[in-house]
């Protein structure tokens, strides 16, 4: 039972952790490119912010899945 609990928590952690890492990696690539664009065209600020925010969906969906795993596991 204890082992099952550990797997549950590990699954939940991975469900949010891996997408968060992926989001971080994607943002690390988008961020410098967005900064470079803004240096030349400051009027594209909104586009740049949106481009940076787009990968966050993955982390957020990971968070939702993680919460659902915990809730399902908890009965």
């Amino acid at each position, binding site marked *: 039972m204890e082992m099952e609990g550990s797997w549950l928590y590990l699954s939940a952690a991975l469900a949010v952790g891996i997408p968060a890492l992926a989001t971080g990696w994607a943002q690390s690539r988008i961020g410098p490119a967005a900064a470079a664009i803004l240096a030349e065209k400051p009027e594209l600020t909104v586009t740049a*912010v*949106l481009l940076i*925010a*787009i990968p*966050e969906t993955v982390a*957020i*969906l990971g*968070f*939702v899945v993680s*919460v659902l795993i915990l809730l399902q596991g908890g009965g």
Partner: protein
Amino acid sequence: MILDMSRIRVLGPMEELQPVLERIQDLGLVHFVESAQTDALTQLVLTPHQERHLRNVRQVAEDADTAINLLGETATLSRRTAESLTLPQAALIAGRTRRALETLEDRRRQLEEERSLILKFQPFFSTFEKIATSGLDLDGIRIFYLVLRVGGEQELLRMRAALRSSLGEGFELFSQPAASGESAMILAVSAADAQRAEALLSEAGVQPLVLPDQFREEGAIHTIQRMQARLKELPQDLVEIEVERNRIAAERGRDLARIQASLHDHLATITTMEKAVVTPRAFVFEGWIPSAARGELERRLQKSFGGKVEVERISKEEWEGELAPVVLKNPRLFRPFEAITRMMPLPRYGSVDPTPFVAVFFPMFFGIALGDIGYGALLAAVSLGIRFRSRPDTKLRAVSQIGLACALFSIVFGFLYGELFGDLGHRLGLHPIIFSREEAVVPFLGLALALGVVHIVIGLCLGAVNLFRGDKRHAIGRAMAAVMVVLIALALMAAFEMLPGRFFTPLVIALLALFPILIVAEGVLAPIELVSTIGNVLSYARIMAVGTASVMMAVAANRMAGAFGGVFVGLMFALLFHLINFVLSVFSPTIHMLRLQYVEFFGKFFSPGGVEYQPFRHWSPREGAV
């Protein structure tokens, strides 16, 4: 909404060209465009004399702009008065004032630089002065002023040892700690040993202090004394500059403001003139005006020029909608949210203005995510602060009003969730009305996704409305997609027993029946588009994710109060954590809710590419104010 525009043509005799433009400028509603040329109608070309005049006007306007910028806040802007200055008079005033202010500004900058230079050296000089005035006989002696960095004891020892082995007893070294923690030192050697001493200092890694150029030749003690005297004089010198600047502002500020306004108006008139097409006797202008204001323009021109000037409406069949400038006109309550719409390119003329929808959904989503009476009240206080510090019709004022709307929704949803600084509300007797976000994660997720369905369906319907005028087949496809999203949502509810299970099969059959129509209307890529739309709906889960993170952080902050030994320390930690959470809880929903508007919602209907409405009107110093 986007105002209905009329394309007009203004015709009149050449001798009335400038007066007509002046009347139109007074009204300030006509957006001129380049007029179409024909064999008979050619573009108005400025004569060499007019070109020269234009260059002069530009130069004087630049002088006035620079002078007013240098005067800063002290520039007083007068109303336009009947009396007017000639261009040479204006040039004289603007040119002289600009030169006087630039001289003052240069002098002020020099004095500031001098002061910061002296302040940089001051801690060492006060120390050197104490050493140097202690009765040394300086004839035939070379003095080195040295600064030893903090913790530079090793350098000092190395230097002493090197000096002793090279110069024997032929040197004196005084050191005294300065206020900065560094040590000020004076090394005195005979003039004959100066070169050797310099080399030794360099080897020991100790840098002599380099005096500012303007003080260098005066000798150390005099330099110190003079610098200290200058430090006392500088504030007075700066005050004198400020007094002189204020005198100029009082004397010429009103004239400058008048010159600036009238010359910018004049420049705008000349630039607009170049958009006219003319015959030897007549001129023709083309432009846009809000349809509701066309009658007013006709009345004014009729009153001023009788029947000599004609305003003609160009029928809609003769122009394309994309060319019309876009004027967003919304009720007062929605107007601040135009700032959010305007962060994207303007919507195309004839399409839907998303501002009213943004004004409802953005603060609502924000409030659902933040949902806390305490944080909402704090946000309201911050927004009110910004409101009182901002000027009307500026971006900052719009931000404050959007902040207030978000705060209001946060407080309302705070009541519904029973949250006041997290779970503090529960402890004080507040009870959740709809659900507690700490426990009811799944209902919260359901609420977020339901809102997503509503928002996306509205977006798809607006898209259908936008497309209906041009491409009816795609409009039907877009409407079909909206219906299918609703059917999918209902089918899922039936599958999860939120609706009676018997609805499931008819809903799936309806979906399958609509599928071919969707493909015919939107093409073979329509199914992929539909899946992407479902993905867009799932994206609204972020409302729940951001909201849950916010409430959990607040709960953690409250627990800190009891988790540390002392009540006071715990309370301080809790307050600090709440403050951090407040900042994060305002920033994060703002970004995410903006994204929901721009990516998920706008993506379904928004057609950018609208032309900015730039009416020909009187110049205003507030243009571009933030």
